[in-house]
Protein backbone atom coordinates (compact mmCIF):
# COMPACT_ATOMS: atom_id res chain seq x y z
CA UNK A 1 0.00 0.00 0.00
CA UNK A 2 1.38 3.45 -0.82
CA UNK A 3 2.11 5.58 2.24
CA UNK A 4 1.30 9.23 2.82
CA UNK A 5 5.01 10.00 2.33
CA UNK A 6 4.84 8.50 -1.18
CA UNK A 7 1.96 10.76 -2.16
CA UNK A 8 3.64 13.83 -0.67
CA UNK A 9 6.88 13.01 -2.47
CA UNK A 10 5.10 12.68 -5.82
CA UNK A 11 3.19 15.89 -5.15
CA UNK A 12 6.41 17.70 -4.26
CA UNK A 13 8.16 16.43 -7.38
CA UNK A 14 5.23 17.59 -9.52
CA UNK A 15 5.48 21.00 -7.84
CA UNK A 16 9.21 21.03 -8.63
CA UNK A 17 8.49 20.32 -12.29
CA UNK A 18 6.05 23.23 -12.37
CA UNK A 19 8.61 25.46 -10.68
CA UNK A 20 11.17 24.33 -13.28
CA UNK A 21 8.75 25.38 -16.01
CA UNK A 22 8.37 28.82 -14.45
CA UNK A 23 12.07 29.33 -13.71
CA UNK A 24 13.74 27.80 -16.76
CA UNK A 25 11.43 28.42 -19.69
CA UNK A 26 11.09 31.81 -21.38
CA UNK A 27 7.81 31.19 -23.22
CA UNK A 28 4.83 32.76 -21.43
CA UNK A 29 2.54 29.87 -22.38
CA UNK A 30 4.93 27.28 -20.92
CA UNK A 31 5.29 29.41 -17.77
CA UNK A 32 1.51 29.32 -17.50
CA UNK A 33 1.48 25.53 -17.89
CA UNK A 34 4.06 25.38 -15.08
CA UNK A 35 1.66 27.34 -12.88
CA UNK A 36 -1.06 24.79 -13.62
CA UNK A 37 1.30 21.96 -12.66
CA UNK A 38 2.03 23.65 -9.32
CA UNK A 39 -1.69 24.12 -8.58
CA UNK A 40 -2.30 20.45 -9.35
CA UNK A 41 0.54 19.39 -7.08
CA UNK A 42 -1.14 21.28 -4.23
CA UNK A 43 -4.42 19.54 -5.11
CA UNK A 44 -2.77 16.13 -4.96
CA UNK A 45 -1.37 16.71 -1.48
CA UNK A 46 -4.73 18.05 -0.27
CA UNK A 47 -6.58 14.97 -1.53
CA UNK A 48 -3.89 12.71 -0.04
CA UNK A 49 -4.28 14.34 3.38
CA UNK A 50 -8.07 14.06 3.09
CA UNK A 51 -7.84 10.29 2.41
CA UNK A 52 -5.28 9.60 5.15
CA UNK A 53 -7.08 11.61 7.83
CA UNK A 54 -10.43 9.89 8.31
CA UNK A 55 -13.22 11.29 10.44
CA UNK A 56 -14.62 9.31 13.38
CA UNK A 57 -17.19 7.42 11.28
CA UNK A 58 -14.52 6.37 8.79
CA UNK A 59 -15.05 8.80 5.94
CA UNK A 60 -12.35 10.93 4.29
CA UNK A 61 -12.16 14.59 5.30
CA UNK A 62 -14.41 16.04 2.63
CA UNK A 63 -13.48 19.60 3.58
CA UNK A 64 -10.19 19.12 1.74
CA UNK A 65 -11.94 17.83 -1.39
CA UNK A 66 -14.27 20.83 -1.31
CA UNK A 67 -11.19 23.01 -1.09
CA UNK A 68 -9.76 21.25 -4.15
CA UNK A 69 -13.04 21.96 -5.93
CA UNK A 70 -12.60 25.67 -5.17
CA UNK A 71 -8.97 25.58 -6.32
CA UNK A 72 -9.97 24.01 -9.64
CA UNK A 73 -12.65 26.68 -10.15
CA UNK A 74 -10.28 29.53 -9.37
CA UNK A 75 -7.62 27.97 -11.61
CA UNK A 76 -10.07 27.79 -14.51
CA UNK A 77 -10.95 31.48 -14.08
CA UNK A 78 -7.26 32.30 -13.77
CA UNK A 79 -6.42 30.46 -17.00
CA UNK A 80 -9.15 32.30 -18.88
CA UNK A 81 -8.00 35.74 -17.67
CA UNK A 82 -4.30 34.94 -18.04
CA UNK A 83 -4.64 33.66 -21.59
CA UNK A 84 -6.70 36.74 -22.51
CA UNK A 85 -3.87 38.91 -21.14
CA UNK A 86 -1.32 36.89 -23.15
CA UNK A 87 -3.38 37.37 -26.32
CA UNK A 88 -3.64 41.13 -25.65
CA UNK A 89 0.12 41.24 -25.04
CA UNK A 90 0.79 39.35 -28.27
CA UNK A 91 -1.35 41.83 -30.17
CA UNK A 92 0.62 44.74 -28.76
CA UNK A 93 4.16 43.29 -28.96
CA UNK A 94 3.98 40.32 -31.38
CA UNK A 95 5.89 38.13 -28.91
CA UNK A 96 5.27 35.82 -25.96
CA UNK A 97 8.95 35.53 -25.09
CA UNK A 98 9.59 37.07 -21.65
CA UNK A 99 13.04 38.40 -22.55
CA UNK A 100 11.47 40.62 -25.20
CA UNK A 101 9.09 42.11 -22.62
CA UNK A 102 11.47 44.27 -20.61
CA UNK A 103 9.85 47.71 -20.80
CA UNK A 104 9.29 47.71 -17.01
CA UNK A 105 12.89 46.73 -16.26
CA UNK A 106 14.78 49.29 -14.17
Amino acid sequence: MPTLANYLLVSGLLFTLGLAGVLLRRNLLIIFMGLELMLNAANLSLVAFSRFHLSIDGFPAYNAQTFVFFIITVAAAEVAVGLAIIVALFRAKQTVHVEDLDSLRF
Partner: protein
Amino acid sequence: MQLALFWIFAVLMLLFGGLVVFLRNPVSSAMSLVMCFIFLAALFVTLDAFFIAVIQILVYAGAVMVLFLFIIMLLDLKGEQTRRINLSAWAGGGLVLFGFVNLLIRVIGSDPRLQMTKPALGSPEISDVAAVGAVLFKDFNLPFQVIAVLLLVATVGVVLLSLRRSATDAQS
Protein backbone atom coordinates in the same frame (compact mmCIF):
# COMPACT_ATOMS: atom_id res chain seq x y z
CA MET B 1 -1.11 -4.41 -6.48
CA GLN B 2 -2.18 -0.97 -5.34
CA LEU B 3 1.41 0.05 -4.72
CA ALA B 4 2.36 -1.02 -8.27
CA LEU B 5 -0.55 0.95 -9.74
CA PHE B 6 0.39 3.97 -7.65
CA TRP B 7 3.96 3.96 -8.91
CA ILE B 8 2.93 3.36 -12.54
CA PHE B 9 0.56 6.34 -12.47
CA ALA B 10 2.99 8.52 -10.51
CA VAL B 11 5.97 7.82 -12.75
CA LEU B 12 3.94 8.35 -15.92
CA MET B 13 2.52 11.59 -14.51
CA LEU B 14 5.97 12.90 -13.61
CA LEU B 15 7.33 11.80 -17.00
CA PHE B 16 4.68 13.75 -18.89
CA GLY B 17 5.10 16.67 -16.48
CA GLY B 18 8.80 16.70 -17.35
CA LEU B 19 7.96 16.63 -21.06
CA VAL B 20 5.75 19.73 -20.53
CA VAL B 21 8.78 21.63 -19.29
CA PHE B 22 11.48 20.29 -21.59
CA LEU B 23 9.80 20.00 -25.00
CA ARG B 24 10.46 22.97 -27.27
CA ASN B 25 7.17 22.97 -29.19
CA PRO B 26 4.24 24.50 -27.20
CA VAL B 27 1.70 22.16 -28.83
CA SER B 28 3.62 19.06 -27.66
CA SER B 29 3.89 20.64 -24.21
CA ALA B 30 0.13 21.14 -24.11
CA MET B 31 -0.55 17.55 -25.19
CA SER B 32 1.86 16.26 -22.52
CA LEU B 33 0.03 18.40 -19.99
CA VAL B 34 -3.24 16.68 -20.96
CA MET B 35 -1.64 13.27 -20.36
CA CYS B 36 -0.18 14.51 -17.06
CA PHE B 37 -3.64 15.63 -15.88
CA ILE B 38 -5.19 12.29 -16.90
CA PHE B 39 -2.65 10.35 -14.83
CA LEU B 40 -3.15 12.78 -11.96
CA ALA B 41 -6.87 11.94 -12.13
CA ALA B 42 -5.89 8.26 -11.92
CA LEU B 43 -3.92 9.07 -8.76
CA PHE B 44 -7.04 10.77 -7.35
CA VAL B 45 -8.94 7.53 -8.01
CA THR B 46 -6.34 5.58 -6.00
CA LEU B 47 -7.17 8.01 -3.16
CA ASP B 48 -10.94 7.23 -3.45
CA ALA B 49 -11.65 10.80 -4.60
CA PHE B 50 -13.82 9.93 -7.59
CA PHE B 51 -15.58 13.28 -7.79
CA ILE B 52 -12.29 15.20 -7.88
CA ALA B 53 -10.94 12.80 -10.50
CA VAL B 54 -13.93 13.36 -12.78
CA ILE B 55 -13.73 17.13 -12.29
CA GLN B 56 -10.02 16.97 -13.07
CA ILE B 57 -10.66 15.23 -16.39
CA LEU B 58 -13.63 17.43 -17.33
CA VAL B 59 -12.28 20.82 -16.31
CA TYR B 60 -8.52 20.49 -16.69
CA ALA B 61 -7.90 17.88 -19.37
CA GLY B 62 -11.00 19.08 -21.21
CA ALA B 63 -11.85 22.75 -20.92
CA VAL B 64 -8.61 24.35 -19.78
CA MET B 65 -6.40 22.48 -22.23
CA VAL B 66 -8.73 23.18 -25.17
CA LEU B 67 -8.39 26.85 -24.23
CA PHE B 68 -4.59 26.50 -24.17
CA LEU B 69 -4.51 24.81 -27.58
CA PHE B 70 -6.81 27.45 -29.03
CA ILE B 71 -4.52 30.23 -27.82
CA ILE B 72 -1.42 28.45 -29.16
CA MET B 73 -3.18 28.13 -32.50
CA LEU B 74 -4.20 31.79 -32.38
CA LEU B 75 -0.74 33.11 -31.57
CA ASP B 76 0.99 31.29 -34.45
CA LEU B 77 4.36 31.00 -32.68
CA LYS B 78 7.39 30.90 -34.93
CA GLY B 79 11.07 31.30 -34.25
CA GLU B 80 10.67 29.77 -30.80
CA GLN B 81 12.77 26.71 -31.62
CA THR B 82 15.75 28.69 -32.84
CA ARG B 83 16.41 30.61 -29.61
CA ARG B 84 19.61 29.75 -27.84
CA ILE B 85 19.47 28.59 -24.22
CA ASN B 86 20.57 31.02 -21.53
CA LEU B 87 23.06 28.83 -19.66
CA SER B 88 23.47 30.96 -16.51
CA ALA B 89 19.70 31.12 -16.03
CA TRP B 90 19.47 27.33 -16.37
CA ALA B 91 22.31 26.87 -13.87
CA GLY B 92 20.68 29.21 -11.33
CA GLY B 93 17.25 27.65 -11.80
CA GLY B 94 18.72 24.17 -11.54
CA LEU B 95 20.44 25.09 -8.28
CA VAL B 96 17.16 26.38 -6.80
CA LEU B 97 15.32 23.23 -7.90
CA PHE B 98 18.06 20.97 -6.54
CA GLY B 99 17.85 22.72 -3.16
CA PHE B 100 14.07 22.43 -3.20
CA VAL B 101 14.07 18.70 -3.93
CA ASN B 102 16.75 18.14 -1.29
CA LEU B 103 14.68 20.00 1.30
CA LEU B 104 11.54 18.11 0.27
CA ILE B 105 13.16 14.70 0.71
CA ARG B 106 14.61 15.67 4.10
CA VAL B 107 11.28 17.03 5.38
CA ILE B 108 9.32 13.98 4.22
CA GLY B 109 11.90 11.61 5.67
CA SER B 110 12.03 13.44 9.01
CA ASP B 111 8.55 12.63 10.31
CA PRO B 112 7.73 8.95 11.01
CA ARG B 113 3.99 9.76 11.12
CA LEU B 114 4.10 10.26 7.35
CA GLN B 115 4.91 6.55 6.87
CA MET B 116 1.30 5.56 7.65
CA THR B 117 -0.57 3.46 5.11
CA LYS B 118 -4.12 4.17 4.03
CA PRO B 119 -6.59 3.60 6.89
CA ALA B 120 -9.58 1.47 5.97
CA LEU B 121 -12.75 3.34 5.09
CA GLY B 122 -15.78 3.08 7.38
CA SER B 123 -17.91 1.55 4.63
CA PRO B 124 -16.68 0.06 1.36
CA GLU B 125 -19.29 1.97 -0.65
CA ILE B 126 -18.70 5.70 -0.41
CA SER B 127 -20.69 8.25 -2.42
CA ASP B 128 -18.26 11.12 -2.41
CA VAL B 129 -20.27 13.25 -4.83
CA ALA B 130 -23.09 13.43 -2.30
CA ALA B 131 -20.66 14.02 0.56
CA VAL B 132 -18.74 16.79 -1.20
CA GLY B 133 -22.04 18.35 -2.27
CA ALA B 134 -23.34 18.30 1.30
CA VAL B 135 -20.16 19.92 2.63
CA LEU B 136 -20.23 22.46 -0.19
CA PHE B 137 -23.79 23.58 0.46
CA LYS B 138 -23.83 23.30 4.25
CA ASP B 139 -20.40 24.43 5.44
CA PHE B 140 -19.08 26.39 2.49
CA ASN B 141 -22.19 28.08 1.15
CA LEU B 142 -20.81 31.63 1.27
CA PRO B 143 -17.52 30.73 -0.52
CA PHE B 144 -19.63 28.87 -3.09
CA GLN B 145 -21.61 32.04 -3.82
CA VAL B 146 -18.44 34.13 -3.86
CA ILE B 147 -16.86 31.80 -6.41
CA ALA B 148 -19.90 32.25 -8.66
CA VAL B 149 -19.31 36.01 -8.56
CA LEU B 150 -15.61 35.38 -9.26
CA LEU B 151 -16.47 33.40 -12.40
CA LEU B 152 -18.80 36.19 -13.53
CA VAL B 153 -16.08 38.78 -12.97
CA ALA B 154 -13.57 36.63 -14.85
CA THR B 155 -15.96 36.28 -17.80
CA VAL B 156 -16.61 40.02 -17.97
CA GLY B 157 -12.89 40.71 -17.58
CA VAL B 158 -11.94 38.38 -20.41
CA VAL B 159 -14.51 39.96 -22.72
CA LEU B 160 -13.19 43.41 -21.80
CA LEU B 161 -9.57 42.33 -22.33
CA SER B 162 -10.21 40.83 -25.72
CA LEU B 163 -12.00 43.91 -27.06
CA ARG B 164 -9.81 45.55 -29.63
CA ARG B 165 -8.28 48.90 -28.70
CA SER B 166 -9.91 50.69 -31.64
CA ALA B 167 -13.36 49.54 -30.57
CA THR B 168 -12.91 50.93 -27.05
CA ASP B 169 -11.53 54.20 -28.45
CA ALA B 170 -14.54 54.58 -30.70
CA GLN B 171 -16.88 54.16 -27.73
CA SER B 172 -15.23 56.81 -25.57
